[in-house]
């Protein structure tokens, strides 16, 4: 009776744990401001992710079949084993008996395992080769640098005057390969956009590269995949695949500095930005603010999230973020700055003009 009770309790605890984990995962998905952006390695949206998901399927099915075969063999062995009473003397006659059938089954299982493992290794090698074979003709070159806890991206194509910097949101053209050069500013990070490509580590002092192509327009969520400090979980990246014409328009807009503010409130906001602590870390193209320690804000208002996918980019969220970044992302390098309500409104009004 007690044993049954124990078993029931054990099953209940297990069910509770599964429920907790799934609801936590759902909560985490709902907490990101861009839930509609796919973040799913099993639904490939480009050739690179496609190769990886193919390999995953080969591995999953092979291993499932082998697992099923082993369970079936185990079940067969249990069922056919002779039942003996605990008091009966053990039957030791089998010790000296030759068992050619058993030896044959073990040998063939070992050979089958070796062959299957070799096949999986081959599949892995061919996937690697396929990943490396993506044609880079007409590729878009972007240098992505990981920081604690945000991403900066420098678009390298064209002459020096054509390069531009953005942060936490990169746009790419559909159907054209993208060549990312990966760097890290402080600690080891890892870039993972599961719907488009595999992971790649970003290591300080080294540069890595990563190539992929998106075949369907739309936003894709990326994430730092290597624990990098307090806010590793809130280090998101949005990759937006645009149709070619729309992408060119976006690039042109990014290359153009934003128009100077016109309203009195926005002008006051700009003065505040440039004279107080904002300009010590942030840059805004076309103004004297040119520090490189924090996300480039040149076209902040055109992005869909704030603080690397932490908050939706609305005026209210922006004001809440500036007033107390540590509340939304504890440990982040942006300090809480004491600022009056009027000044905060002016600052937000200015930042909202940076389309």
């Amino acid at each position, binding site marked *: 009776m007690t044993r049954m009770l124990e078993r029931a309790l054990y099953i209940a605890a297990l069910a509770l744990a599964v429920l907790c984990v799934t609801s936590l995962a759902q909560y985490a998905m709902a907490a990101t401001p861009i839930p509609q952006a796919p973040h799913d390695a099993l639904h490939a949206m480009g050739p690179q992710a496609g190769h990886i998901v193919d390999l995953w399927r080969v591995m999953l099915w092979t291993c499932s079949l082998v697992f099923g075969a082993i369970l079936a063999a185990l079940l067969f062995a249990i069922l056919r084993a002779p039942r003996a009473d605990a008091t009966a003397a053990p039957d030791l006659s089998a010790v000296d008996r030759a068992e050619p059938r058993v030896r044959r089954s073990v040998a063939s299982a070992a050979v089958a395992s070796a062959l299957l493992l070799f096949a999986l290794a081959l599949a892995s090698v061919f996937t690697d080769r396929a990943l490396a074979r993506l044609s880079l003709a007409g590729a878009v070159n972007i240098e992505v640098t990981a920081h604690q806890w945000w991403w900066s991206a420098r678009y390298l194509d064209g002459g020096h005057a054509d390069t531009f910097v953005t942060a936490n949101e990169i746009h790419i053209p559909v159907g054209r390969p993208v060549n990312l050069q990966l760097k890290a500013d402080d600690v080891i990070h890892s870039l993972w956009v599961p719907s488009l490509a595999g992971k790649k580590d970003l290591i300080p002092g080294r540069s890595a590269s990563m190539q992929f192509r998106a075949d369907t327009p739309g936003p894709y969520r990326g994430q730092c995949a290597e624990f990098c400090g307090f806010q590793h979980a809130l280090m998101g990246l949005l990759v937006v695949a645009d149709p070619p014409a729309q992408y060119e328009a976006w690039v042109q807009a990014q290359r153009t500095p934003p128009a100077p503010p016109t309203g009195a409130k926005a002008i006051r906001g700009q003065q505040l930005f440039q004279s107080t602590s904002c300009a010590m870390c942030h840059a805004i193209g076309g103004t004297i603010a040119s520090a490189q*320690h924090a996300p480039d804000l040149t076209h902040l208002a055109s992005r869909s999230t704030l603080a690397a996918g932490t908050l939706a980019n609305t005026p209210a969220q922006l004001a809440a973020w500036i007033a107390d970044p540590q509340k939304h992302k504890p440990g982040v390098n942006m300090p809480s700055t004491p600022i009056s309500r009027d000044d905060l409104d002016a600052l937000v009004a200015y930042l909202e003009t940076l389309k």
Partner: protein
Amino acid sequence: MKRIVLACLLVLLASGCEREARRFTTPANNETAAESAQRLGTLQPAVPLAGGVRQAKANVSPYEENAFSVNQGKRLYRWYNCNGCHGNGGGGIGPALMDSQWKYGSDPASIFATITQGRPQGMPSFGGHIPDDQVWQIVAYVRSMSGQLRKDVAPSRGDSLYPGNPENARPKETPQPDKSQPSRPPGAPS
């Protein structure tokens, strides 16, 4: 008896935790509310601010026991380009910070005033441009450069190429006024 010893050990351990505490909220600032001190440096970063700067209320840095904050100070020292003039503490355009010579005082309040007010001959006035609690973190780091902080709080090996000893392996210098220079500018706190 055993329990008392254990309790004492736990209290000792807990009191030692300040060294490792991560402060995510800005603690109470140690400076006057009024911007009463005048700016003494002619330079300011970015667009200059009008008006004065705040002074330290008490001659104590709130961060000198906290290794995390001292290291944040080290990061900010680089971010705000202190090393542009002072190098890694050995000086260059500005005076050295790792030696025993101090033109404007080596105590926390004096270094705070030097950073916020600025000093003649090139030290910009950072008051209002750098949040005050970050200035205190930089103050703590600057004092660690000449061995003024406890060895377990001062930063160890840094990320940049630097051939000398890290801050926590430097001998403690005995600060003395730099006699080759006029001692204190008018209006500086004593």
